[in-house]
């Protein structure tokens, strides 16, 4: 098991999706078992991949046996395995949650099929080393998510899904034009090869145009602020496990990861670009936070808060310093865990009470202790209360901004953290504390599997700060940061490990 590990990240979810679509209708329970099995094995493989990277360095897999510029290659480096762990961890816990939650919807097997296809798309995007292949898998994940947003087939879901589909397709066309231009300019599609040719050719106008196209395209997928309009509709409308996946990992895998990979390793980051990313991040942070404050719908509030937190991540990564990238990646991981936890909580509330309106809730902790306390942990973590995980990553982002002499950005980040605390306190006060409303007397705590995954996620939130302990940090975060900081040496590393 060396190189053969890599294609499994795509083959396992695809194969299970096809099997479920064939047999899921006839055999009851197969869909549940198979998809849980698939996501669990993916999680296991992701952890395995870390040891593999540690032992061998960068691993390149040649699909079909063709040498990379001719064929497609898959690349496993430390950033890849970091992202794989983030995605598959959330995916596994979400599948466990869905076993009971999706009983509320019809056609569970179609849900699992689409879910696994989306997962395959995300893993494919992360693992690939080829630009067009990245686009193809990005489309798989996007199309699956368009359909999943409309899973409830009610008015709002359909409308949100339409909006999401149209904006997502526009983003895809921008990305495709960017790829076409790069192909014509360098005559290659392999990311390492493109990077090599670009360093030889030096800077040119076409590169800045392509950067603009990619920022528009991937920025739309990542919901950075001028391009965020679809997110507050799409994320709340989806079923809760899907909201957790969309907010928790999809926008990161398709948007932020692709941006990082392309800008740092392929195009090479310049100071203008870095400022552009940082200012996009800051605008998203502020606007997302302000809009979240005014929301009454719990899932909508979480969705706006996602925009704000993605702003933090992009700010950290955009700084381009070692500390900044480290902080950004750390926050990315933390946000994946606590935002999916919060969305799962909101799903539990909806499951038990049937409403998403904050004004109709109150005193839920008394009736639903697991949901109540786990959401308390999630909220405290996202608003940066020590010693929970969110505190450490936000602290690091602010420290990195100060270190890089961006004092204005640092102070804005502090202010937005306080803003975050404000609106999460609002959620806690309205939903979980205070008087229990009469209409909610009869509610019960949610089934076991839903509790299990919420508990697991809150444990990760509590101990997330441990990732900064030197021994763990070196293998997990720092090496991922190093992969980005290598910049254009990416090409040499890839071609070096092909032999």
């Amino acid at each position, binding site marked *: 098991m060396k190189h053969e590990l890599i294609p499994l990240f795509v083959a396992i979810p695809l194969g299970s999706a096809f099997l479920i679509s064939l047999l899921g209708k006839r055999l009851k329970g197969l869909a549940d078992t198979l998809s849980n099995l698939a996501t669990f094995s993916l999680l296991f493989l992701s952890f395995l991949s870390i040891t593999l990277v540690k032992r061998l360095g960068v691993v390149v897999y040649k699909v079909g046996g063709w040498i990379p*510029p001719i064929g497609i290659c898959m690349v496993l480096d430390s950033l890849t395995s970091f992202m794989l762990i983030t995605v598959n961890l959330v995916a596994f816990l979400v599948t466990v949650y869905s076993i009971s939650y999706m*009983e*509320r919807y019809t056609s569970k097997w179609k849900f699992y099929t689409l879910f696994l296809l989306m997962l395959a798309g995300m893993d494919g995007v992360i693992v690939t080393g080829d630009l067009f*292949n990245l686009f193809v898998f990005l489309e798989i994940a996007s199309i699956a998510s368009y*359909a999943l947003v409309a*899973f409830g087939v009610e008015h709002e879901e359909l409308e949100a899904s339409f909006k999401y589909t149209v904006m997502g397709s526009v983003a895809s066309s921008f990305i495709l034009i960017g790829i076409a231009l790069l192909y014509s300019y360098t005559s290659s599609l392999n990311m390492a090869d493109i990077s090599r040719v670009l360093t030889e050719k030096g800077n040119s106008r076409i590169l800045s145009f392509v950067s603009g196209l990619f920022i528009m395209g991937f920025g739309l997928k990542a919901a950075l602020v001028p391009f965020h309009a679809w997110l507050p509709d799409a994320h709340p409308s989806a079923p809760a496990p899907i909201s957790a996946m969309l907010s928790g990992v999809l926008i990161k895998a398709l948007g932020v990861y692709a941006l990082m990979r392309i800008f740092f390793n392929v195009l090479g980051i310049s100071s203008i670009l870095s400022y552009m990313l940082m200012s996009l991040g800051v605008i998203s942070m502020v606007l997302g936070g302000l809009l979240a404050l005014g929301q009454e719908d719990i899932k909508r509030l979480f969705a706006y808060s996602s925009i704000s937190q993605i702003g933090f991540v992009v700010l950290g990564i955009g700084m381009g310093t070692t500390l900044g990238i480290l902080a950004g990646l750390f926050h990315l991981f933390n946000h994946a865990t606590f935002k999916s936890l919060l969305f799962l909580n909101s799903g539990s509330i909806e499951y038990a009470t049937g409403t998403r309106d904050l004004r109709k809730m109150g005193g839920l902790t008394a009736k639903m202790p697991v949901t109540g306390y786990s959401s308390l942990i999630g909220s405290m973590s996202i608003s940066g209360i020590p010693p929970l995980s969110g505190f450490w990553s936000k602290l690091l982002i602010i420290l990195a901004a100060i270190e890089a002499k961006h004092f204005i950005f640092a102070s804005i980040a502090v202010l937005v953290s306080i803003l975050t605390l404000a609106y999460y306190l609002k959620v806690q006060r309205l939903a979980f504390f205070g008087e229990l409303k009469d209409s909610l007397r009869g509610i019960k705590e949610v089934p076991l599997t839903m509790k299990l995954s919420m508990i697991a996620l809150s444990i990760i939130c509590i101990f997330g700060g441990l990732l900064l302990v030197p021994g763990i940090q070196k293998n997990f975060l720092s090496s991922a940061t190093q992969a980005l900081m290598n910049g254009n040496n990416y090409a040499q590393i890839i071609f070096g490990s092909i032999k």
Partner: protein
Amino acid sequence: MFELYALLIFMIIAAIVAVEIKDLLSSIVAVGAVGLGLSVAFLILKAPDLAITQLVVEILSLIILIRATIKRDITPVNGQKELLNAIIVLLFIGGFLFFAYLALKDLPSFGHPIMRVSKTYLVEGLKKTGATNLVGSVILDFRAYDTLGEATILFTAVIGVLVVLRRVGRKGVGEEVKEDEEYED
């Protein structure tokens, strides 16, 4: 290359007609003209595989679009156009085209691609894969992984359509809804 220019001008005009005409059905027919023009353009550009595919795909999507609109609300939309919105969009497009114009100067000129990597496909395609259709050898051998993705996309869309067209989305816990009844209510 005169015919290509003529074809592009035709496509642009057809596209403008498709966008601006009030009647939805005529608009769909105009977009069909754009698509078929594209198919001919592929033929001129020596891409017969694409011409066939574009032709059949265009027919299929036209059938689907026409069945979608026919006998539905095809009353023209004549609500007050938001002029400001249109102006902003036009400005944005103007800027986009200007930057595109600047950037396109750096590309290799039309008709002279670099073809560093793809020369290998041409020279070694037959020897390595045994297929005389070199496009076929690229999509199903050199880059078969992409084609797996492509097939998966279509599969995803099919499942997605089936999901979207379900009649009943939600149900109570423990309540049974027969699969076949989902579509027919």
